[in-house]
């Protein structure tokens, strides 16, 4: 089909990806700018990376962010997987509509509302704001993303495999552990990664639910950026973009290899 490479399609892909990537590439280039003025190029330098690494405030905030992200994404994965299982395999129970509504609503709920409502909850039950409250808040919205990802996988897999395990004498929990879980593992892992990045990224909800002693990196970046563009933030952004790029590329290579291996095993299986 020659239509696949029509001029129209190639142009829209080129322009589209240029639009998506040029701003980030420019940001990366300017993070190596020697000048203090972000808009004037004064030669290559790694000076801002050095200054960033000496900035205690940013390092502290990065540590808090990482702790919150690991804790909340792990918790969200457990809760989100349970929620997905209930949604897909739970059958009918009281308040099911409300339950599925509560799973989908946080995906589109404006962050200012979620943040405000959680803060008012924490205050009315007298919970001091800090790392713990940010973890609670992040777990709540990211468990919904996890459950959407996991339930997509649960819907598509053959239920008779599970039933076979039950017929062969497995308890429901054993069937889940030895049949269902291995099959949905890729979705659970990508759910965890999604929850992790959502938590790293969140500014608005963390601003509402954090206390004075628990500033996260996005809050720090936001207050620095409000004062104007700074080369230090360019360096920090480049590091974050780099980590994400390496992570995503590695993950996709690993899953590609897993798919290839599975294919090969299946082919060998057919030959026998």
């Amino acid at each position, binding site marked *: 089909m020659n239509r696949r490479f029509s001029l129209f399609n190639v142009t829209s892909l080129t322009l589209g990806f240029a639009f998506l990537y040029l701003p980030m590439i420019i940001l990366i280039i300017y993070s190596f700018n020697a000048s203090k003025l972000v808009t004037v190029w004064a030669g290559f330098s790694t000076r801002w990376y050095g200054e960033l690494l000496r900035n205690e405030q940013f390092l502290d905030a990065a540590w808090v962010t990482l702790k919150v992200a690991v804790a909340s994404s792990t918790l969200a994965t457990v809760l989100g997987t349970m929620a997905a299982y209930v949604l897909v395999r739970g059958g009918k129970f009281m308040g099911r509509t409300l339950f599925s509504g509560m799973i989908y609503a946080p995906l589109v709920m404006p962050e200012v509302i979620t943040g405000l409502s959680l803060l*008012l909850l924490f205050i009315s039950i007298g919970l001091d704001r800090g790392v713990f409250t940010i973890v609670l808040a992040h777990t709540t919205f990211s468990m919904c993303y996890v459950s959407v990802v996991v339930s997509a996988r649960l819907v598509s897999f053959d239920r008779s495999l599970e039933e076979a395990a039950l017929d062969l004498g497995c308890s429901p929990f054993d069937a889940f552990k030895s049949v269902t879980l291995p099959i949905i593992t890729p979705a659970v892992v990508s759910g965890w990664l999604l929850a992790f990045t959502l938590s790293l990224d969140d500014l608005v909800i963390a601003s509402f639910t954090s206390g004075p002693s628990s500033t996260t990196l996005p809050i720090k970046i936001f207050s620095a950026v409000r004062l104007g563009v700074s080369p230090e933030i360019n360096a920090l952004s480049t590091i974050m973009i780099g980590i994400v790029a390496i992570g995503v590329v590695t993950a996709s290579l690993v899953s590609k290899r897993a798919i290839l291996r599975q294919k090969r095993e299946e082919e060998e299986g057919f030959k026998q």
Partner: protein
Amino acid sequence: MNPRRLLLILVPYGWLLALFLIPFVIVLKIALSDTAISIPPYTPLLDLAAGWEGFKSFLGQLDFENFVFLTEDDLYWKAYLSSLQIALVSTIITLIIGYPIAYAMARSAPEWRPTLMMLVILPFWTSFLIRVYAWMGILSNEGLLNQFLLWTGLISDPLTILNTKTAVYIGIVYTYLPFMILPIYATLEKLDASLLEAAEDLGCTRLSAFWLVTFPLSKSGIIAGCFLVFIPVIGEFVIPSLLGGSGTLMIGKVLWEEFFSNRDWPVASAVAVILLMILVIPIILFQRNEQKNREADQ
């Protein structure tokens, strides 16, 4: 019901009730309470220990003062209307830009598709804040865009783009583009190519085949994409505050300032309640659409 199943349902259900639904009830309660007593540490109006009497006195104390206040100051109306307008216009622009990209992806060779898909998802994994920030350096008066336009001779004086509505549109379209591309791509990819061949065999031109076959069949993806852009953009806070300057009014920003700068919690809650009421209809429609798509898949 066996206890294990009950536990499986109760844990995520209870979590969402406690940390998603109950907080909204509290927001509603504070929106309906007096300004003076709700400034921290405010006294709860509903005294559960007092039983029915407490509930009656709670009902007696409710007042709509904060909502009346919102109608009196036209700042709030303007902010709601301006948010709706910005969300609507940017959804349309995102659709116009995103559709051709999704279409081209779906029509590319199958071995290319995973790579193209990853290229669309990758920006989604990178920080939202950083992607908005990247535009600050490009759009400012001495920024790269102005430098480029001056260099090409298209303009003789730098344009003011940063801190205007245009910058907000650019920022929204840029950050929400993947949300539009992915659902449309998902429906287009499933499209049976033989339908198009049949249309052309029956005398359709390529354009009319697109209009009569491809476009209607991608409708569910378009609807999902539009909701995924429109609903969150209404409450957007980061983009208007970094790119929009003080002149751009959006309700998410107003709520934030009411809360953090003016420290008027009841008014901030009232703003949130009305915002939520505006969003209830699109959110329900979104959920219906998702349900329909899932049933169609099965």
